[in-house]
């Protein structure tokens, strides 16, 4: 050993950084223990104190709401900020014990003026009052193009925001824009007294949102620590205006991915995991210390067609015929995908409106049942003929296209494979292609350069979807990545936005649903499930139970939850 004890040597490791892709394991094998069906989460009287451990599968980016665009950051903001208005269990905008406003939103009859009355006793965590100045500052920052807040579109229709007195804010609109209330006022505000002197272009670089000691907040808990890539800590804020939360401390544990996160839940290191992989549902159900919720969440997936012929060889876009698109919808067994791939945690989805919400068009949206024969007949009607290799042809062009999806999403990978098979059965060649997400956004979606895409949308609370279907929003500036154009539907979206009368809007959206599910710019696939596991320590009263169908609904009314001993 002479000579070797002087210096410490390194040693080889088999694994190589950079080659890792998410999804190395498919969860844990099922345990033998029988599933515990008792709804322990509803039992007992509230207890004050204790620690609630929440988990996320990647670290936060920033808790500055101006720039938040990722789920973990959004989750943690639920702990530390109070919204101007809350949403109730049905997704309506309301003032309640937790909102900064203490009176219902006042909208003028012409829909051009919004008046917000703020409560007088709201305080920031540094003891300063929350006032109209904060609301004015926040909306102006969101509106300012130099700030670079991705939410700016919601505030574009705002002409002016004024402070009438310390507790009253008036917002004047350039034109009637109905989505404004739900999309822009269920939102936190920023402390003007901390940030008002920061130049707009510097706001994103400011330590507000990344340094807990500088992130003054007005929610039930305040942020006390961020150990990057490991955890965040929050504690009940004595300055909070609302009912004191039962839970004293919240820990948000950062995991490497959803599988590690799930292991943490199974082990008992974590009290809530809202990203339980569907492949592991059986293992989770077998643990009697875990309470599992499996409702469908506020997002849907779709296959989007591209209507820009320049994306196809010889400028031949195979998707131009209505019947062809309908045939594709008939060729897919969506229910089987929900049952087998989503393991029953999702729901069939027809059209772009949130099921169960006021805008749900019900039967007005066409439901395409699995019917390969009908698909074949429609394709034939549309002029497709069987070619020598079994693939359909029209005017000498084979019906072949590439379906892109983000590579490390195992659900989409499986769905794409099934789509490939089912389309082959009707004579269409679909070539699934997994792409790194960042590259997919940069090269394909932002520029509308793809043939077909399998991806999803999160629902906003307001049903408006003009920004993804209207020809006003073609790439690179808008999100109508498939270059879909239907002037009738374009007009209807505008009509839906330009009245604040909900009954009228409902009729408009019903009409849109009817037309768009015939026209099919997307094959609407399914509402995605968000299985969420809770440790049996976590309790809530029925009114405060999580509602997975709402945005952040897995944390709904967490102020009123409590942690017990088991």
């Amino acid at each position, binding site marked *: 050993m002479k000579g070797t004890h002087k210096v410490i040597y390194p*040693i080889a*490791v088999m694994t190589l950084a950079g080659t890792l892709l998410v999804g190395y394991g498919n969860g844990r094998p099922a345990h033998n223990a029988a599933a515990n069906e008792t709804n322990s989460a509803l039992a007992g009287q509230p207890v004050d104190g204790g620690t609630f451990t929440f988990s996320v599968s990647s670290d936060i980016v920033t808790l500055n709401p101006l720039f938040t665009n990722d789920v973990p950051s959004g989750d943690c903001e639920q702990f530390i900020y109070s919204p101007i208005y809350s949403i109730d269990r049905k997704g309506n905008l309301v003032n309640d014990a937790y909102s900064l406003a203490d009176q219902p939103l006042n909208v003028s009859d012409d829909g051009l003026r919004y008046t917000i009355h703020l409560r007088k006793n709201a305080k920031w965590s540094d003891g300063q009052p929350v006032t109209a100045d904060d609301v004015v500052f926040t909306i102006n920052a969101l509106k300012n193009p130099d700030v670079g807040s991705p*939410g700016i579109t919601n505030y574009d229709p705002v002409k002016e925001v004024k402070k009438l007195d310390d507790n009253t804010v008036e917002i004047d609109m350039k034109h009637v824009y109905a989505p404004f209330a739900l999309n822009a006022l269920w939102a936190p505000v920023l402390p003007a007294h901390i940030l008002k002197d920061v130049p707009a272009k510097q706001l994103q670089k400011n330590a507000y949102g990344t340094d807990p000691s500088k992130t003054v907040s007005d929610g039930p808990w305040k942020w006390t620590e961020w150990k990057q890539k490991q955890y965040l800590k929050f504690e009940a804020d004595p300055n909070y205006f609302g009912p004191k939360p039962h839970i004293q401390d919240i820990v948000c544990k950062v995991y*490497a991915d959803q599988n*590690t996160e799930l*292991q943490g839940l199974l082990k008992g*290191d974590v009290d809530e995991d809202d990203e339980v992989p569907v492949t592991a549902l059986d293992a989770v159900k077998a643990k009697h210390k875990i309470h599992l919720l499996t409702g469908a969440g506020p997002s849907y997936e779709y296959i989007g067609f591209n209507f820009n012929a320049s994306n196809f060889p010889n400028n031949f876009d195979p998707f131009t015929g209505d019947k062809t698109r309908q045939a594709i919808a008939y060729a897919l067994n969506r229910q089987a995908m929900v049952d087998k791939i989503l393991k029953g945690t999702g729901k069939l989805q027809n059209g772009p409106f949130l099921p169960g919400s006021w805008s749900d068009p019900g039967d007005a949206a066409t439901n395409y049942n699995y019917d390969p024969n009908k698909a074949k007949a429609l394709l034939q009607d549309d002029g497709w003929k069987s070619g020598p290799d079994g693939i359909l042809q029209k005017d000498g062009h084979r019906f072949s296209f590439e379906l892109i999806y983000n590579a490390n999403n195992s659900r989409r990978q499986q769905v794409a494979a099934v789509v490939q098979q089912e389309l082959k059965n009707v004579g269409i060649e679909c070539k699934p292609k997994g792409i790194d997400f960042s590259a997919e956004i940069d090269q394909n979606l932002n520029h509308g350069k793809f043939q077909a895409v399998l991806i999803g949308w999160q629902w*906003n609370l307001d049903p408006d979807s003009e920004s993804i279907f209207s020809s006003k929003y073609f790439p690179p*500036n808008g999100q109508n990545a498939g270059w879909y154009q239907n002037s009738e539907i374009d007009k209807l979206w505008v009509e839906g936005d330009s009245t604040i009368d909900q009954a009228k809007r409902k009729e408009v959206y019903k009409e849109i649903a009817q037309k768009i599910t015939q026209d099919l710019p997307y094959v609407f696939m399914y509402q995605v499930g968000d299985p969420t596991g809770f440790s049996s320590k976590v309790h809530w009263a029925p009114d405060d139970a999580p509602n997975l169908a709402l945005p952040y609904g897995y944390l709904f009314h967490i102020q009123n939850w409590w942690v017990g001993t088991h």
Partner: protein
Amino acid sequence: MTEYLIRRAVQSVLVLFLVSVISFALMHAAPGGPLMVMLPKGGSQQAILAQEKNAGLLDPMPIQYLHWLGQLLHGNLGYTYKNHVPVGQILWPTVGNTLILMGVAWVLSLLIAIPWGIYNSTRTYGISDNISTVLAYLGFAMPAFWFGILLQEFLSLDLNWFPLSDMYSMNKQGNIGDLIWHLILPVCVLVLVFLASYLKYSRASMLEVLHMDYVRTARAKGAPEKHVIYRHALRNALIPIITVLGLDLPNLVSGAALTENVFNWPGMGRLFVEMAFAREYAVLMAITMLGAVFVVIGNLLADILYAIVDPRVQLGKKGGTAA
């Protein structure tokens, strides 16, 4: 020797410069960018452009490179683009965490592998040698992360003997005993991986030397067997082992991404993968440069150690076998 070291130092700086230019260019050439995100419905692409402008991402690439280099020369590794956190604040703790994990695993495996390999070389195909062969095959063939998941399944989830993941329990941050407790499973995984190659190297290079004439001579002159092995044979047998060690030095900081993932260890491997997906150029550059520095140092150390272990090697002299 001094002249040799100076020459190597100059070469190293040049190598590092080239590495930085090439990696910077490659990273920026990859599609996507740190501020490129899937916007929510109705999100504004212009806003992302404004963010990119504010962050300097729209400047020409050579300007961005010079800016980065200038900061580096002032000892500043830069900031993340998404949230403007100093890179050092993210990087150095993970370097430390990885060194703890890899260092412990490495020292343990050397302490096991070298003596055991030597022992096996003197008693080839005995029980001990066969056991080590089986272990080595397992270590080579079994994916480390999978072994990790098995250990978690049985020893943590089923039997509850060990913690599942992380460096510390939530309420015992910074507690050394707790750290050791958390180290056991991931270190087991890494030791198996390390043992696989080191057992083979130490056994093979000893065997080669043991058949040399000078060893026979030593035995012939009546030197005791221990003397023959440790004084005569081992010194020469160490040379190939040192080569491997020197080349592998960067791995000590680059970490083991998959093992770190499974055990939720907040180390460099995980950081690198995560930052690669996020296109956080400044962090990636810092990690790449750190890796490059360790490659350079590893090679230099190996060369110096040759000279210490083997007096025939004379650094910087013409005809030296390793210079």
